[in-house]
């Protein structure tokens, strides 16, 4: 990309020089931004500043040098190692309309091309956020939620950290037509951890991974916070699945409130520290989410979605429980009640070999999954009418 981009307001790759320059500047100021990230609110305020103000606020002793380079800035050739990556700036057609606002990123690098992002953002987008240290319950719920939504043609947006975000992407990819948008906290080339590379490729196949930083800027802590604002900004609805009642865990919810976007949360046990975040939101008026149906109801208050390739909700949630035999239902019910290991089921009065048979049948039919420490978790909210 060595064209004379300086004079071209909208270059071929969908990013104009001023937006590329903003992205470059954020990369250069990554260190000071990370320092400021101790105060999340201040970081978000800084990110809303214009380039000049940002330089004034953060450049410090490097001010003169950075200003000189800023003035001379020319779009560099893109990183060749990621062939499909394209840049989308806020002036481009593909830039998600919902994201545009004060403090929004000026430029996004998109792993699967600009067109893909435009396409995905044109559908309804739901952000699934939550703790990076999630319980097996939270992971299954995030996964079920994302799968149901993706199967109904909704785009799932989530970060790319551990925990709930991973569950959300995995769930969206479980659905046959599912797609998700993953937001990285650093450059696309360098900030994806090795253990997530497979997921990166799978997400890119049908959805896309995006980042507001140039592809060679490594991820830092502030990037995670900035990514959260993009995740929430992309979505018309934000669902908090699991999280403690801390500033960090509730950051996404705060951003959604600031943007005046609807907020929803999935409840958990009141005894679990990871349920405190969602419960706090629910108490303050967030919508209660028990499964994908509840989200779809919020998105389409009048009934079924008008657009989207598939109007049918996830087959797992509605069809299967109808066919369940009585003894399997009994086991499912008990697992939901907390008798979630073979030994506990036996002590609850179920014969040992019946318990193992039932657990295996429920697992192979996708109603139970293995959780941590040999426990089983329900993959779908238990419904007595089913």
């Amino acid at each position, binding site marked *: 990309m060595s064209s004379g981009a300086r004079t071209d307001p909208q270059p071929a790759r969908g990013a104009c020089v001023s937006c590329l320059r903003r992205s470059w500047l954020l990369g250069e100021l990554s260190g000071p931004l990370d320092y400021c990230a101790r105060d999340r609110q201040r970081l978000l305020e800084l990110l809303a500043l214009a380039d000049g103000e940002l330089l004034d606020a953060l450049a410090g002793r490097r001010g003169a040098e950075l200003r000189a380079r800023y003035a001379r800035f020319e779009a560099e050739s893109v990183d060749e190692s990621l062939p499909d990556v394209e840049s989308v700036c806020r002036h481009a057609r593909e830039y998600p309309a919902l994201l545009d606002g004060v403090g929004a990123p000026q430029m996004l690098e998109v792993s699967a091309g600009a067109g893909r992002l435009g396409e995905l953002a044109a559908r309804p987008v739901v952000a699934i956020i939550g703790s*990076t*240290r999630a*319980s*097996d319950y939270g*992971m*299954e719920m995030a*996964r079920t939620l994302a799968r149901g939504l993706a199967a109904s043609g909704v785009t799932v947006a989530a970060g790319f950290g*551990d*925990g709930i975000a*991973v*569950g959300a*992407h*995995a769930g969206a990819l479980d659905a046959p037509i599912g797609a998700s948008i993953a937001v990285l906290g650093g450059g696309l080339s360098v900030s994806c*951890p090795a*253990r997530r590379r497979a*997921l990166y490729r799978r997400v890119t196949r049908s959805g896309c991974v995006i980042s507001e930083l140039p592809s060679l800027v490594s991820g830092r802590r502030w990037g995670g916070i900035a990514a959260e604002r993009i995740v929430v900004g992309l979505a018309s609805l934000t669902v908090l699945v699991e999280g403690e009642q801390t500033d960090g865990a509730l950051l996404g919810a705060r951003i959604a409130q600031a943007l005046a976007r609807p907020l929803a949360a999935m409840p958990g046990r009141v005894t*679990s*520290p*990871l349920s405190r975040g969602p419960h706090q939101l629910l108490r303050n008026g967030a919508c209660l989410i028990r499964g994908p149906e509840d989200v779809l109801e919020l998105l389409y208050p009048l009934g079924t979605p008008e657009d989207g390739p598939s109007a049918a909700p996830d087959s797992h949630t509605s069809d299967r429980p109808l066919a369940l035999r009585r003894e399997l239902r009994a086991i499912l019910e008990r697992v939901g009640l907390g008798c979630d*290991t*073979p*030994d*506990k089921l*036996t002590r609850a009065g179920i014969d*040992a*070999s*019946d318990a*193992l*048979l*039932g*657990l*295996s*049948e429920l*697992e*192979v*039919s*996708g109603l139970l*999954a*293995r*959780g*941590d*420490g*040999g*426990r089983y*978790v329900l993959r779908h909210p238990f419904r007595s009418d089913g």
Partner: protein
Amino acid sequence: MLARAHTFTIQGLHTLRVSVEVDVRPGLPAFTIVGLADAAVREARERIRAAILNCGYEFPSQRITANLAPGDMRKAGPGLDLALACAVLAASGQLPGEGLERVALFGELALDGSVRACRGTLAVAQATAQAGLHTLVLAGARAREAQLIGDLDVVVAERLSSAVRVLAGGAGDPLPAPGADRDRSSQPAPISVQAGACAGDLGDVRGQHHAVRALVIAAAGAHNLLLSGPPGTGKTMLAHRLPAILPPLSRAEAIEVTRIHSLIGSSVHALAHARPFRAPHHSITAAGLLGGASSGSVGEVVLAHNGVLFLDELSEFTRPTLEGLRQPLEDGRVAIVRARHSAVYPARFIFLAATNPCPCGYAGELDRCSCSEAAMARHQRRLSGPLLDRIDLLATLQRDLATDQRARPLTSTRHARERVADARQRQAHRLTGEGVYVNAHMDPRLLELHVRLDERGQQMLGAARRGGLLSARGEHRVLRVARTIADLNASARVRASDLGAALALRPDLGLAASRIA
């Protein structure tokens, strides 16, 4: 004059027949040993000279050349002394040479002419019988060990002079009384834990019924078992109770185990009756576990042959050590190749491992587990893949159940042993003539033949396969385990409940499946 004697040298677990040729001719007095002898054999010259003189014979002051054939194999150890000394005496005309042709001689000489026993006597006796030599002359201390091999005339020679008398057609020395073993203090500890000696009864295990059931299944079908659970839930306690519920060794197995005992230097007086139980510490090296640390040394996997290899804190073992287990787990033997020797050792054992589900051990308990996702992923990577693929059963233990004092034990060792023996008998009966005796060793052809699922079972297996819960190898494992569970239930058919239990016990690491996205 030329004389030839027969003896054996030990190479790891194998014996090598050695022909000792001694030539004595006029010339400058010298004693040369050729034929790739190690230091212990070269030092034999001094022992032999002193022993011959102290027994009242004459050491020829001529040129003596001893050749150890075959010349291209390394000979080690002092066991060749007796044969060398007798060959020297025969070559110098102090002993009729014909006597040497029909016997094997095995022993180390002391300077006063007495004969000392050497490690590996049982293997040497076995090899002597196989080589068609009908008599083995050796020290009294290990004579009972050699007598365990029938079909062999074991003659005791406590002194070099006794050996000379035997070779001239006389009688041997009397067999020493049992327990009159002189070199007992220098012996390594016996390699098996006696059943029930240090391990308690299965009836001591309160609660954890799921894990106890898995232990019995593992014993019944010789399946490899992984115990996963937080610290203090009884993983090690359970593991130590496995050998006692295993069936006793068959005679062929007992000879194999005894032979290994003998080769690593324990003195044995009877065939082993307890299954070996080896529990090496996690600081063990790959060479220590697999063998080959020094030339010919055998590893823990070999010492666990026909028994149990228990690796506690599996995730603490180094990667190369665990990777090295793949071959023995797959083939039941381990091939060690080093610069100077290569050997294949038997190593068929029940692999029993215990691990924490995550580095801190409390996965699933949010208020206690302090592991990040990255730490859990690292923990999983260390164990997953090829090693986990060779484990048939996973039993997870829970903490809340471990502390329940009201819980009753599921079974006693005696009862479990009976059930296991019963199940083993069914397997042996079914697998007659197939070359395998237990379900764990059934190949896909035998699985096809002996594991017939009912309709419900087939549906479950199909659903598991479609749902990505089972790989092809995993499916075979589940079927083997299901067959064992059916055997424990004394059922000829594999019912859906047997398959269900096998599926519920199929291994992973005890961490949520959704974390591995």
